């Protein structure tokens, strides 16, 4: 039998343990190839021509993704190799030369790599078509996703993964030479020394997180740090975050678990000490995994939060300055009556009002018009004007620098402002943000040209481009929420696209990594739970321990990831000058919910594996 046949046979026989590894490899290739296809796609690059920024974002994301898949594959590969050390030892014991075994492993890994590459590319091609269609729709672009197979993407993917596979294969090859036979036999059994909590590590961890947070919250325009590090600043921040998280897990978690385990009152009750020592026992491996999960969670939360925040704000911004779908000066235009929600026609005048230092031009409307408009916009605090009073409206009012109008002088008579509204009453683009509401009688007395204004609200305003375009061509001083919204979304298109894609990828990846990890632990823990079963631990107690053990692995990185993501989003929202609070909270809740679903799925499979373990054994 040739070595090649042996390698192939090996894979075919151990399909079950291989499938986990192959699965994660295919998944990585699938994700990377999909992104590469989209990156090289003409639809996207056509859009990218409009902005170099977009190209930059896509390039940077591809890089992040590459690092991620590399880590992910290395990670699953090391799990896989650990499981197979015994098999390798057996070959060695039977007298197969190290050289041959090394070659076998190298060969086998390359075969797996190439097969997964094939599957990943095919699946990736299908997925990218689907994703592009969805994403273009999300961006509000009516382009049919009819892009072809991208040769560039294929070449790019092949090169990247060939290097990764070469690396893992070499690693596998190296294992044979580095270890002695006796070690290989005990590979699975070897107990890690129980780690000790060191104060210095904890302090260092907190310090690096503090530095990272401090850097992240610097003002982009003024900060010295940004001047020194330039565009490398984000990398510095990320490096400090990763380091800090790792040290924190390594020290704080060890400390807490040791303290819990040492406390007889807590630990010697049911299986508490079992839960604590299980976690402690694997702390070194766990610290790495937890860090990875934290960073992935933080990335997902940040990218998703930013995208969702921008998306959310896009609509809010439009709404804030363009409350009516369409507004224009002049006569009524024909609009399909079935889509009209409300339609108001009114007159307005312009006056100049002298303020302390300068004069301002104000739109003037009478009280009846105000009533109609405000009621249409659903204002709740509409008051009645008394004789010789006016209302003032300032859509741009900001306490920090705006002046609050107390009174206005019209026709040389001073009128006190009975109520000041800092909300928008009509489309800013058509009439501006400032207005004064006066009684009918006063309105008639103002000598100024009167303008006829049309304000229209329609249903489903985001998708009324045709109507909007027609009206824009035939009217004057036209403003349209439809067009504003479309412009905003399109200009944010690439950001949205990259953000949501990465968010999706990382969400799936984070869940999968924890799942893989916990399943591997379940396999390793089978024997332990079988012992517990034998000495009379009930199913209920065991399930509780499993939930606790899995729960810590899920909760701890989620909490830290949420904090990281929160800080990053504050930084992002400062950069964009947008208020992210509501969308970010919604997004974090959504993330936590999906994450919780992964938790329940993992616990379920974990329990199943353990149960199968002791019922068969």
């Amino acid at each position, binding site marked *: 039998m040739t070595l090649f046949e042996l390698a192939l046979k090996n894979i075919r026989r151990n399909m079950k343990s291989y499938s986990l590894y192959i699965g994660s490899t295919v998944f990585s290739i699938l994700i990377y190839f999909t992104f590469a296809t989209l990156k090289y796609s003409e639809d996207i690059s056509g859009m990218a021509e409009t902005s170099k920024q977009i190209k930059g974002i896509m390039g940077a994301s591809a890089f992040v993704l590459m690092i991620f898949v590399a880590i992910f594959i290395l990670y699953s590969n090391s799990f896989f190799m650990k499981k197979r050390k015994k098999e390798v030892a057996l070959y060695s014991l039977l007298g197969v030369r190290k050289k041959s075994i090394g070659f076998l492993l190298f060969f086998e890994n390359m075969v797996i790599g190439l097969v997964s590459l094939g599957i990943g590319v095919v699946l990736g091609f299908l997925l990218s078509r689907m994703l592009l269609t969805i994403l273009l729709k999300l961006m509000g672009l009516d382009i049919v996703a009819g892009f072809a197979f991208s040769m560039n993407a294929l070449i790019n993917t092949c090169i990247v993964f060939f290097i990764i596979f070469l690396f893992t294969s070499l690693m596998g090859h190296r294992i044979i030479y580095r270890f002695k036979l006796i070690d290989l036999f005990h590979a699975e059994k070897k*107990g890690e020394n129980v780690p000790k909590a060191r104060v210095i590590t904890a302090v260092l961890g907190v310090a690096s997180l503090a530095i990272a947070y401090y850097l992240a919250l610097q003002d982009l325009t003024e900060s010295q740090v940004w001047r020194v590090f330039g565009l490398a600043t984000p990398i510095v921040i990320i490096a400090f975050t990763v380091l800090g998280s790792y040290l924190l897990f390594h020290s704080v978690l060890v400390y807490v678990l040791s303290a819990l385990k040492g406390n007889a*009152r807590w630990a*010697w009750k049911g*299986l508490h000490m079992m839960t604590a020592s299980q976690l402690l*026992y694997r702390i070194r491996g766990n610290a790495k995994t937890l860090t990875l999960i934290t960073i992935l969670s933080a990335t997902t939360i940040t990218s998703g939060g930013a995208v969702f925040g921008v998306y959310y704000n896009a609509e809010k911004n439009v709404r804030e300055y363009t409350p009516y779908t369409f507004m224009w000066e002049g006569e009524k235009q024909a609009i399909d009556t079935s889509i009209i929600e409300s339609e108001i026609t009114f007159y307005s005048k312009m006056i100049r009002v002298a303020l302390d230092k300068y004069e301002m031009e104000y739109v003037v409307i009478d009280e009846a018009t105000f009533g109609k408009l405000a009621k249409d916009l659903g204002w709740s605090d509409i008051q009645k004007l008394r004789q010789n009073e006016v209302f003032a409206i300032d859509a741009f009012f900001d306490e920090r620098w705006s002046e609050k109008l107390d009174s206005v002088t019209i026709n040389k008579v001073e009128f006190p402002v009975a109520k000041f509204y800092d909300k928008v009453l009509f489309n800013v683009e058509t009439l501006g943000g400032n207005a004064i509401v006066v009684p009918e009688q006063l309105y008639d007395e103002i000598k100024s040209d009167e303008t006829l204004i049309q304000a229209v609200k329609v249903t489903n305003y985001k998708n009324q481009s045709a109507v909007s375009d027609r009206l824009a061509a035939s009217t004057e001083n036209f403003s349209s929420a439809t067009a504003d919204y479309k412009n905003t979304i399109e200009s944010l298109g690439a950001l949205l696209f990259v953000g949501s894609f990465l968010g999706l990828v990382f969400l799936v990846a984070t869940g999968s990594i924890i799942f893989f990890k916990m399943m591997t632990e379940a396999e390793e823990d089978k024997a332990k739970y079988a012992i*517990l079963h*034998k000495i*009379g*631990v*009930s199913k209920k107690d065991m399930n509780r321990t499993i939930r606790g053990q899995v729960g810590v692995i899920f909760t701890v990185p989620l909490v830290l990831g949420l904090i990281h993501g929160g800080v990053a989003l504050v930084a992002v929202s400062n950069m964009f000058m947008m208020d992210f609070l509501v969308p970010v909270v919604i997004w974090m809740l959504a993330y936590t919910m999906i994450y919780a679903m992964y938790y329940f799925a993992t616990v379920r499979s974990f329990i199943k594996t353990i149960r199968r373990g002791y019922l068969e054994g």
Partner: protein
Amino acid sequence: MESLLLVKDVEKKYGKDANTFKALEHISFEIDHGEFVGIMGPSGAGKSTLLNVLATIDTPTTGDIYIGKDNIAKMKEEKLADFRRDHLGFIFQDYNLLDSLTVRENILLPLAIAKIKPEEIAKRVDEIAGTFGISDLLNKYPYQISGGQKQRTAASRALISNPKIIFADEPTGALDSKSATDLLESMSSLNEKHETTIMMVTHDAYAASFCRRILFIKDGRLSKEIFRGSKTRKEFFQMILDELAQMGGDVNDVI
């Protein structure tokens, strides 16, 4: 006096229809309180199956097993777990210690599961560790101690909850002769001084010679029963060897 363990016509079948294999057939016997019973027989005779069935780890196909008043052959899984916890102790050939717990924690595990108070637990651990001479090892981890020490740890764990009966499955199988003797002597003295009931499966005649009574099992059936009575351990050892020789065929397997 009512017997502690009563086995009535137990049968264990594997497989279905034509492929049925009977691991145990018509097994009936009793063990009284304070006995030290050995079960011997060639490989594949059904020793371990019998022990697993008695120890509630496996369930018999037919028949009844009473421990005290409880029929464990008819118990539900959750109740069985509690029963194991409260009334049974186990010693296995491969120790079955949890390597992420210290020796102390391994020993006290059954008490922790039974929700005993920490003060009480600490006292009982010290006592039992003294009995087995492992007081100095309590804070070590299983991978730091020798096989004999591991087995004494396992024995301490089996005994700490004062079980009604101890099941030992080839407890000396992986030990050198010195450690094996130490362990067997401790078990024997526990049996004599504290009237602990022990049932041990072994195919080592030397280990078996520490018992008071031996049941031989062959092809899934009980074939013979011998008592030590007033004989010395050495005489009993010779008796066992003779018995095994008579059983024929598989002697190689035994010695």
